[in-house]
């Protein structure tokens, strides 16, 4: 009977005190969607930056008179540089091929001789694509014999490091502050919702009800509110995805639909937040003597 009462009471509470409950649900819903929406945007920016980093490469153009011994030494030396993840040898013929793919023109149609030099495409480990490390690596490579020219887009890295990374840090800070703020809003709203029913809590205590019995209807109420709020937020996020989808694909080359599962996280998070907040709120109004 107790459990029946508790369930019924939770559902009934929700209906009979529509205003605070509706407000709690709205607060949870909006909080979650703001939080998850902003997090997602920040995450997308972050992964774009990472992708730019991943594509970072250093091109080594070799002198035309390089010997195969020199090439061996060069490769051995490249192997010794720990920041280098991978390198790829591009012969004169490969280069012509790439030229053809990129420019649609056969280099031999223009010149009889292939003027493109042999080269190496070097990829660094992701974590190593920072301006100073790259400069350091380039310096070491520069000392190797047989290299004509080193080309790399350090300015892009510089930009990432000076601006985009900062934006990331700021974004992270925003998410963090939002997390704190939203958490506070949800807790406060539920606390107020419980506050408006402190009479009921007092009466139950006067009738000798235990702490758990007192709290469970509210906890269950919090759970339901959290789940409904989570669904609300899921719906908001879904529409946000629909609207922003094309833009996202264009900007970040990212299919937003991939993260549509975010709505399920949202419901889960709502449920947890609802339960924790309501449980803590009821505690505030439990006291032994009414004069306390």
């Amino acid at each position: 009977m107790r459990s029946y009462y508790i369930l019924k009471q939770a559902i009934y509470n929700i209906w009979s005190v529509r205003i605070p409950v509706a407000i709690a649900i709205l607060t949870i819903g909006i909080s979650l969607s703001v939080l998850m929406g902003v997090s997602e945007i920040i995450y997308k920016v972050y992964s774009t930056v990472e992708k730019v980093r991943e594509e970072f490469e250093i091109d080594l153009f070799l002198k035309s008179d390089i010997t195969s011994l020199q090439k061996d030494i060069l490769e051995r030396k490249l192997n010794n540089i720990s920041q280098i993840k991978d390198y790829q040898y591009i012969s004169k013929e490969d280069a012509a091929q790439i030229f053809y793919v990129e420019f649609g023109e056969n280099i031999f149609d223009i010149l009889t001789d292939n003027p493109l030099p042999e080269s190496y495409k070097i990829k660094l480990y992701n974590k190593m694509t920072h301006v100073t490390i790259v400069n350091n690596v380039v310096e070491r490579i520069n000392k190797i014999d047989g290299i004509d020219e080193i080309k790399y887009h350090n300015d892009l890295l510089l930009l990432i490091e000076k601006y985009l990374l900062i934006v990331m840090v700021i974004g992270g800070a925003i998410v963090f502050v939002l997390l704190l703020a939203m958490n506070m809003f949800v807790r406060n709203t539920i606390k107020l919702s419980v506050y408006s029913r402190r009479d009921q809590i007092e009466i139950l205590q006067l009738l000798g009800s235990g702490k758990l019995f007192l709290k469970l209807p509210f906890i269950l109420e919090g759970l339901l509110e959290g789940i409904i709020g989570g669904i609300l937020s899921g719906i908001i996020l879904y529409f946000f995805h629909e609207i922003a989808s094309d833009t996202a694909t264009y900007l970040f080359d990212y299919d937003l639909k991939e993260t549509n599962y975010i709505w399920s996280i949202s419901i889960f998070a709502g449920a947890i937040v609802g339960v924790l907040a309501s449980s803590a709120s009821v505690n505030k109004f439990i006291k032994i003597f009414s004069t306390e």
Partner: protein
Amino acid sequence: MVKFENVSVDYLYSEGLKDINIEFPDKEFSLILGATGSGKSTLLRLIYMDIEPTSGIVEVGQWSSRKVSARKIKKLRRSVGVVFQDFRLIENMSVYENVALPLIIEGYSRKYIKRKVETIIDEIGLLDSINQKAGTLSKGEEQRVAIARAIVKNPFVLLADEPTGNLDPESSVTVFNLLKKINKLGTAVIMATHDYLLIKDAPYRRVMMDCGRISENQEIE
């Protein structure tokens, strides 16, 4: 047994209680009389430990106001039935639910609760309104629900604070008879009242209160 030893309660503007010494033996019916503001409700609130005495000791059965804990107070309140002067019903629950609450709290079975609650609601004459929300009842109806809720769990002490204040003379007699019946079954009843007509011939102890003191403690055999 309920026992007050040198109990005082201080309030900001008024008397509260001053040096109360009194015993209410088990199974006895006691009436507390006195003008408004003389401390009747304060006395009763001490018994169900809604307030602490400023000094002195209140003992209720095995519980003492000197050693209280949430757990002990919970147990105490489960074995004491209280008709609050302001009823304290949960407004958005039905009559049935309000009366059933003490039983639900103690974890009785649904079937037992249903039988018990319906019997008692019948006894106070509110079977027609059993599903009505407590918040929409007339005052007299609310009062009767409050009485039903207090007696539904067969408490070992029943505290009734002005339980007929909103009732017409006829209903008052019915309620008083109900309390008498419960007392006969072994429950101590302590009832604060102004209704001198109702209790005129009742063969019960009368405790007269005046400005926070007991001015008379008159036992009648």
